[in-house]
């Protein structure tokens, strides 16, 4: 909220430069986000009196004026029509700066003009700020304005306006009173907030105005008074200036008084025409089902019993705490006005405003929980101002009815405990002084403190400690030397995840960080069938959009989106990975929450293909001691290519899947090339870890043999390898494929796979005949399956 310094210094005597003030307030808890000198954009504009006005020779609408600016005279040429000798006006001199630009001496139609006379608009002001001026002409100042004064001073624009960010627990600081109190305690000066008083009342209220509270739970207090013979006119300049600086547009004295009090006391006020309240009998009640009310903004509101209204015996007049009704609003011939100053329960106003889709200056204050004790002083202030501004005749008497009252907590005052808690050594006397300045009531024996009613945020010991700490200064609390504590260790699974990530980086994959949302549309693009379990993800009831309305049940769409983005920004190749969560709802979840398993996912195109990923998987398995993986053809997953996909198994269990994404799905994602994806379960991999142990260096030389075998096109190398392994037993140290050939010399429908075998004896040098017979055994077994040596 915006507060001009002069409004604050009405109530406490502070002289400080703005930067220091902003800083000190921030450091005691009232954060100042910034400040500005209101008239900072204006310089070199002074008041001057017009001495003479002559028509310009060469122009019908230009006039030549001679002015006295106190320190000398100036000639100004103007196109304005409203200039007369004797007027005092703002004069922008040579070199002056205005929001619209700089002003310099120049010539208009051959006549020198030593500056410019200003309109209100040129000074950044409006008719609301200056109701006696006209927009289309020079700003005319009061006759008695001294000459040669900077205009910023004359208009009160030479003041700093501070922008404070108030936290939601400090409702009391949404008004100037609260800010000024904080400032007074911060600077250790007295807080002089006068009690408002009305000098002269006119008649007595009697039964002209009565109030009945039918909803004491929601209406915590209702006070009101009447002003008759209202004389609506512009507010005086001092009030208009402060309102303007606080960011509120001045309208007229009655409206301005209610706004002024709201800003100063943080107490919303409502003024309405007494005539339109039947018999002057106000009833505060819950609305009836279907009851309708046209609010001041012209919208007809449909109400229900959850909403509180201000009403008379016949109808609703206002939505309590939110907005007044059109019907009872003040009009040109209004004579008697009711000033209402009430306190409503925060939750009631919140839910009513939300249900109606409204948010007003009033409701945004009420919904944080105002202080019922503040209603009467605010009302008195309004009446005091009515009298000062001669806006009407204050009728004597009030209505004041309470609802449910809150008891103020009585909190033990424990200075040693406070010091132990903060780790500081704050003087007991200092603590009591701060609390008293903050208007806590201290018991006779200083054993307990009671917070003031406007501090609904103070409940117990910790709150009192904070009040003490923030004025003592957080920075004065010592920095405790930390005890030497042994380092903590990552858990085994955390270390494991780190290892997986490092392996992936070594393998050439870039780690990604993908969003957790999913949409049904993405599942469509992925070719997931409509009734597939993956469709039944955690659904967000208030998502930002359809695209992000589910929590993902599969991490694959996220990977594909990212691959697609890179593909479409012309990355030739991509190799990506991530350990990310999937969110899987399940039957029998005790708290309704889904499982969130971690998936290790790889994706790539270009240089990365099925076999790259397969190699990565095997490398991981070897490194973590899980041994050899088995890859088994998988053609049943709709989003994978039926001929280029495999289940990944280890020790008999399926731990993942690797394959090319189905070309249709890939195209749906805008990827027009082969894209491969691999998914592994981190949990299962973790369970398969084994310690690697040294097996000794080979002591005997190895024998290598190459075998080219011809088999049917559909044969799988894996089964051929298995036969060779079985036949060669522990003699076979290693078998690799170094070529797969089709073409000249091979029958159509067949292929030739070339293997390189490495055989080694554990405890002896193998003889040729041993090697030969092992291989012969293998070849025989293969022959029985129709696999022959290539000739």
């Amino acid at each position, binding site marked *: 909220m915006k507060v001009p310094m002069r409004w604050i210094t009405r109530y406490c005597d502070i002289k400080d430069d703005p930067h220091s003030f902003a800083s000190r307030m921030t450091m005691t808890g009232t954060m100042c986000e910034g400040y500005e000198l209101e008239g900072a954009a204006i310089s070199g504009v002074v008041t001057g009196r017009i001495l003479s006005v002559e028509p310009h020779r060469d122009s019908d609408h230009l006039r030549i004026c001679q002015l006295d600016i106190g320190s000398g005279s100036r000639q100004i040429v103007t196109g304005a029509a409203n200039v007369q000798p004797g007027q005092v006006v703002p004069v922008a001199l040579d070199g002056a700066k205005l929001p619209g630009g700089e002003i310099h001496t120049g010539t208009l139609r051959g006549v020198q003009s030593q500056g410019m006379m200003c309109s209100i608009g040129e000074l950044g002001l409006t008719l609301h700020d200056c109701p006696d001026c006209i927009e289309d002409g020079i700003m005319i100042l009061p006759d008695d304005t001294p000459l040669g004064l900077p205009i910023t001073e004359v208009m009160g624009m030479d003041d700093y306006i501070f922008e404070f960010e108030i936290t939601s627990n400090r409702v009391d600081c949404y008004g100037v009173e609260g800010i000024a109190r904080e400032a007074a305690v911060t600077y250790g000066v007295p807080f002089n907030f006068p009690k408002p008083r009305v000098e002269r009342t006119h008649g007595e209220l009697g039964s002209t105005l009565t109030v009945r509270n039918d909803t004491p739970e929601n209406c915590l207090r209702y006070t009101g008074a009447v002003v008759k013979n209202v004389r609506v006119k512009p507010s005086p300049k001092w009030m208009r200036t402060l309102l303007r600086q606080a960011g509120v547009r001045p309208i007229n004295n009655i409206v301005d008084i209610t706004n002024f009090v709201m800003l100063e006391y943080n107490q919303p006020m409502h003024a309405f025409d007494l005539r339109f309240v039947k018999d002057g009998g106000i009833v505060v009640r819950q609305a009836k089902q279907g009851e309708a009310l046209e609010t001041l903004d012209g919208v007809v509101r449909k109400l229900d019993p959850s909403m509180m209204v201000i009403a008379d015996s016949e109808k609703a007049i206002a939505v309590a705490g939110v907005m007044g009704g059109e019907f009872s609003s003040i009009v040109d011939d209004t004579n008697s006005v009711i000033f209402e100053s009430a306190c409503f329960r925060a939750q009631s106003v919140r839910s009513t405003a939300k249900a109606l889709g409204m948010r007003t200056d009033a409701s945004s204050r009420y919904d944080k929980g105002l202080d019922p004790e503040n209603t009467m002083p605010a009302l008195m202030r309004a009446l005091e101002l009515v009298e000062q501004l001669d806006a009407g005749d204050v009728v004597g008497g009030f209505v004041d009815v309470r609802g449910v009252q809150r008891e103020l907590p009585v909190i033990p005052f424990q200075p040693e405990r406070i010091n*132990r808690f903060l780790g500081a050594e704050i003087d007991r006397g200092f603590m009591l002084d701060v609390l008293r300045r903050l208007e806590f009531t201290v018991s006779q024996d200083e054993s307990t403190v009671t917070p003031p009613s406007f501090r609904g945020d103070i409940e117990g010991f910790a709150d009192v400690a904070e009040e003490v700490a923030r004025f003592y200064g957080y920075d004065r609390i010592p920095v405790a030397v930390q005890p030497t504590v042994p380092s903590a260790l*990552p858990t085994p699974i955390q270390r494991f995840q780190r290892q997986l990530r490092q392996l992936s*980086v070594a393998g050439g994959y870039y780690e990604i960080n993908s969003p957790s949302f999913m949409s049904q549309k993405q599942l469509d693009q992925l070719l997931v069938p409509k009734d597939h379990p993956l469709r039944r993800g955690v659904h967000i009831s208030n998502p930002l959009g359809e695209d992000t309305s589910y929590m993902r049940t599969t991490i694959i769409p996220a990977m594909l989106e990212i691959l697609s983005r890179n593909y479409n920004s012309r990355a030739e190749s991509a190799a990506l990975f991530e350990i990310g969560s999937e969110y899987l709802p399940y039957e029998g979840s005790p*708290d309704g929450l889904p499982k969130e398993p971690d998936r290790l996912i790889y994706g790539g195109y270009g240089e990365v293909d099925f076999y790259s990923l397969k190699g990565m998987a095997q490398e991981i398995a070897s490194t973590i001691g899980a041994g050899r993986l088995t890859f088994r053809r998988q053609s049943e997953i709709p989003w994978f290519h039926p001929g280029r996909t495999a289940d990944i198994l280890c020790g008999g269990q399926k731990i993942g899947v690797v394959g090319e994404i189905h070309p249709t799905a890939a195209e749906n994602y805008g990827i027009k090339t082969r894209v491969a994806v691999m998914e592994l379960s981190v949990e299962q991999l973790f369970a398969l870890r084994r310690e690697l142990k040294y097996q000794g260096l080979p002591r005997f030389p190895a024998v290598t043999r190459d075998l080219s075998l011809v088999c049917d096109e559909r044969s799988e190398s894996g089964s051929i390898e298995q036969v060779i392994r079985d036949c060669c037993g522990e003699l076979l140290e290693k078998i690799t494929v170094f070529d797969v050939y089709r073409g000249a010399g091979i029958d159509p429908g067949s292929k030739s796979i070339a293997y390189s075998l490495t055989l080694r004896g554990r405890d002896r040098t193998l003889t040729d005949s041993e090697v030969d017979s092992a291989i012969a055994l293998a070849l025989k077994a293969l022959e029985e399956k129709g696999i022959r040596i290539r000739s």
Partner: protein
Amino acid sequence: MKQKLEKIRSEALSRVAQAASLQELEEARVVYLGKKGELTAILKQMGGLSPEERPAMGQLANEVRTAIGDGIAQRRQQLEKQELESRLSAESIDVTLPGKDPRIGRLHPLKRVQDEVSEIFLGMGFDVVDGPEVELDLYNFEMLNIPKGHPARDTQDTFYIDDNIVLRTQTSPMQVRTMLERKPPIRIIAPGRCYRSDTPDATHSPVFHQIEGMAIDKGITMADLKGTLEIFAKKLYGPDTRVRFRPHHFPFTEPSAEMDGTCFRCGGKGCRFCKGEGWIEILGCGMIHPKVLRDCGIDPEVYSGWAFGMGLDRLTMFRYDIDDIRLLFENDLRFLRQI
């Protein structure tokens, strides 16, 4: 004979000195010192000399043989050296041609920062814990002293699954889960994803990352909070970093504070980055609210604790000069490769 020996000596040395290659040198050696060489032939004639002449001639002959041998050895060294030099010169390569790309990947910047922060806290004795992102309203709000109807709960900010389940808006529910599972002393950090209903732009994302931290024990004070967090800031930003604590408000801590660190761009002098203040906000923290402790079964009369919460995306953006948070989620390789 003497003359012949001298003649052989000077001829041989001259020829050796002029040998242009190891082959020529070998040829020269054979001619003079070989089985059928000239010197060998002369030495065979030694037998025809008188016993008085033989010692002197023998000595001279040996001298000559030695001289030629040394000459050959020397010339060989020279020639070998020359050959080596010319080979090296011919093998010279253009060192400015591109090297072979080893094709190593990279960790994601956000994860790297998370790892770094975790390391610092592990080193100070804090365990790293993890918890669900789809979370109970109870743990995300109510048990953090944010009852239903509290302004912090506006549905405009929170993603709801149903009345009781939300996407966690902060990592603070991990405080609750930890307190329910463990008894003090507790020292933990909990990094993780959070969600808020924010329209994505350069500084807002509906998915974001935080790190939560908490220490609970007997006699933990606000001075301890300051101590640990100051150490953390210095480890993360450098030993010259200073910190300050400003009063603030969180429903689950009391007193609450925000910690600023000296601006790492200007060292605290004031610059555009820190809006001339010299300070950058780093995290929010405070003493755990007694209500929160009590609701989690920890007696606030016996135990006290502090907690902090920090935005990881923001930290990552500062670290690497990233000006748009969406880059952290888009994973464009052109971005990932830069950092």
